[in-house]
C-alpha cells in the first residue's frame, strides 16, 4: 500500500525553505556576541569531559589543567584501589562505588529497561485510543478527549503524594512496575497522535473495513504504519524524558539496586563529598548524558520537527 503521500504532513518541512534574511550581509557583526555565547555553551561540557579523564591528584590542582596531563580511565574503574588498604592517589572508580552487581552498569540497565518499556507501552495504548477517538463514531469520545486534553494543564507534581500512597499500598515501591505503570497514560502523546490522525483520510480505514479487516487488525496493520512519523517524534520525547526522569524515581526508589541513573547520580553526590570524588561523579554524568546526546544527534531532524509540530501547530 502506498503510504508515502499520507505521511507528507509530517515528513514535509514545516515551512518553505528560507532565503537569506534581509541584512544578512551585515549580520556578521551582530552575530559575534552569539558566537561568543556559544563558547559558554561548550565550556561546561568541556570541563566535565576533562575532569572525567584526570587522575585524582590532578582534579583539585591550582591552577587547573585544561588538557589532562596524565589522562586516565581510573575514574571509571581504578585497579589501584583497595577497600582494605589506603593507596594515595587512588579512589574507587565509578563502577566500584555501589555495592550492587555490575556497579553503575546496574543503573544503566534499569534506566534502559524502564525507558524502553514506557516508550513502547505508552505509544501502543495511546495509538489505540487515538485511533478510536478519531476514526470511530463512539458516543462519549468528545468528552473523553476533552478530559484528557484538560489534564495536560495539571502539573504532574500535584499527583505525587497520592501516587506514592497508591504505590505503597500496592507494594510497588522499589519495583519496575512502580516506574512503568503510572507513566504509561501520557495525555500529550494521545493529543499529538489525535492531531496527526485527523490528517489521514477516513477512506483508507473504510476500505480496509470493506475488505473485512477487524478493528485490531486495522490498528496494527494500517494505523500504526501510518502513524510511524508521529510515533518517531513522540518516542524521542518520551525516551529523553524517561531516561532523565528524577523526582518520581527519587520518591519511588529505596534500595540501591532499583535506582535509575539520575537517582544513582544524586546518591553519588550525597555519599561522596569533596573535590577528589568529582572525577567519578563526572564520569557518571558523562555516562548518563552520552546515550541521550547520541540519540538526539542520530534523530535530530525528527526531534526538532516534533517540537515544532507539537508546539506550534497545536
Amino acid at each position, binding site marked *: 500500500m502506498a503510504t508515502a503521500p499520507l505521511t507528507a504532513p509530517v515528513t514535509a518541512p514545516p515551512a518553505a525553505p528560507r532565503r537569506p534574511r534581509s541584512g544578512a550581509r551585515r549580520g556578521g557583526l551582530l552575530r559575534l556576541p552569539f558566537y561568543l555565547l556559544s563558547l559558554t555553551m561548550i565550556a561546561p561540557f568541556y570541563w566535565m569531559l576533562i575532569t572525567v579523564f584526570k587522575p585524582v591528584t590532578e582534579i583539585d590542582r591550582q591552577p587547573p589543567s585544561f588538557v589532562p596531563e596524565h589522562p586516565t580511565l581510573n575514574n571509571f574503574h581504578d585497579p589501584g584501589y583497595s577497600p582494605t588498604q589506603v593507596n594515595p592517589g587512588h579512589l574507587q572508580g565509578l563502577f566500584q562505588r555501589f555495592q550492587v552487581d555490575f556497579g553503575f552498569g546496574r543503573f544503566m540497565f534499569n534506566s534502559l529497561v524502564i525507558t524502553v518499556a514506557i516508550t513502547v507501552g505508552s505509544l501502543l495504548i*495511546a495509538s489505540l485510543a487515538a485511533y478510536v477517538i478519531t476514526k470511530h463514531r463512539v458516543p462519549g469520545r468528545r468528552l473523553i478527549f476533552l478530559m484528557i486534553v484538560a489534564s495536560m494543564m495539571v502539573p504532574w507534581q*500535584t499527583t505525587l503524594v497520592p501516587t506514592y500512597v497508591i504505590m505503597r499500598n500496592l507494594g510497588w515501591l522499589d519495583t519496575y512496575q512502580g516506574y512503568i505503570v503510572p507513566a504509561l497514560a501520557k495525555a500529550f502523546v494521545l493529543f499529538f497522535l489525535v492531531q496527526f490522525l485527523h490528517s489521514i483520510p477516513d477512506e483508507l480505514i473504510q476500505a480496509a473495513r470493506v475488505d473485512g479487516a*477487524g478493528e485490531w487488525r486495522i490498528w496494527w496493520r494500517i494505523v500504526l504504519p501510518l502513524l510511524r512519523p508521529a510515533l518517531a517524534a513522540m518516542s524521542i520525547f518520551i525516551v529523553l524524558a524517561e531516561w532523565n526522569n528524577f523526582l518520581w524515581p527519587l520518591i519511588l526508589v529505596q534500595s540501591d539496586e532499583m535506582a535509575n541513573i539520575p537517582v544513582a547520580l544524586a546518591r553519588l553526590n550525597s555519599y561522596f563529598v569533596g573535590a577528589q570524588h568529582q572525577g567519578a561523579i563526572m564520569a557518571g554524568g558523562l555516562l548518563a548524558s552520552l546515550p541521550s546526546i547520541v540519540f538526539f544527534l542520530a534523530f535530530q531532524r525528527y526531534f526538532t520537527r516534533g517540537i515544532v509540530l507539537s508546539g506550534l501547530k497545536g
Partner: protein
Amino acid sequence: MATPAAVSRHRWRRHGTSYLMLLPFLALFAGFLVWPLANSLYLSFTKFDGVTAPQFAGLENFRRLLFDDDRFRHALGNTFLYVVASVGIGTLLSLGLALAFSGPGWPHRVMRTVFFLPSVTSSIALMLLWKWIFNPGDFGLANTVVGWFGGRAVEWLATPGLTIPILVLMSVWGGMGYGMVLYVAGLGSIPQEYYEAARIDGATPWQQFRRVTLPLLRPVTTYVVVTGLIGAFQVFEAVYIVFRGTNNIGGVLDSGLMIVPYLYDQGFTHFKLGYASAIAWVLFLIIFALSMVNLRIGRALKEL
C-alpha cells in the same frame, strides 16, 4: 437489507471493540491521573502522616500556607523572582539566537545544535556539573575565571545573594536553545514577500524587524513564554542537587527554596503529606491559570 435489530447488534459490537481499545489508556489515565488528582484534593484538606489514617482538617492547611508559613511565603517569593528573571532573559536570548542562526547552512546548523545540547543532556548530570563548576576552591572553574581577572575566590553556593542569580543563569543556559528552535520555525513561516514589500517601501532593517518580524512572531512568543513559565514554576533538580544542605533543602538561609522543593521537603522529608498536597494544589492553580492563557487547548478542541 439488514433488520434494525441486526444493525443495533452490529453497532454494539463495533462500539464494544472501540471501548475495549480505549480501555488500556482510559484505565491507566483514571487510575494514575484522575484518581490521584481527586485524592490529592482530598488530602489537601487533611492532616496525614502517611501512617495513620488522614484526619479531616478543613481549610487549616491552606490557612497555614497563606498566613502562617514564612518558609512557604519565602518559597513563593523566590519562585516568582526566579520565574520572571529566567523566562524574561531566556526568551530574549532565544529570539536573538533564532535571528542570528536561522539559516540553512552548516555553520548555523552547528550553532543550533550547540545551543540545543543542554535540552537533551541529563539534567542531574548538568546540575552536578554546575555544582562542580561553582566549587568554592580556587580550582573550581568559576573561581579560576574570576582569578584570571584578578578576583578572589567566591563562595558561590554559600552566598545567599548569589543563589537566585545562579539558578537563573543555569536555567537560561539550559533553556534558551529550546526557545530558539521554536523561534527558528516561526521565522521560517514568515513569507519573504513581506520583507520585499517593506524594503520597497523603504523600511530600514530595524523597522522591518519591529513592524514585520515581531508582530508575526507573536504566537510563538506567547507559546515560548507560557511554556517557559510553566516549566520554571516546576523547578526542582537545580535546587535539590546544587543547593541542598545536609538538613535544609533550599540552600543557605533558604535562599533557593522554591515551590516544588518545598513540596518535596514537607511531603517526603517530614512526611506531612496533607500539607504537601495543599502546596501541590497551590502549584496546580498557578499552572492552571497559566495554561488557560495558552490557546492550544481551545484550538485542539475545535479540530475534533
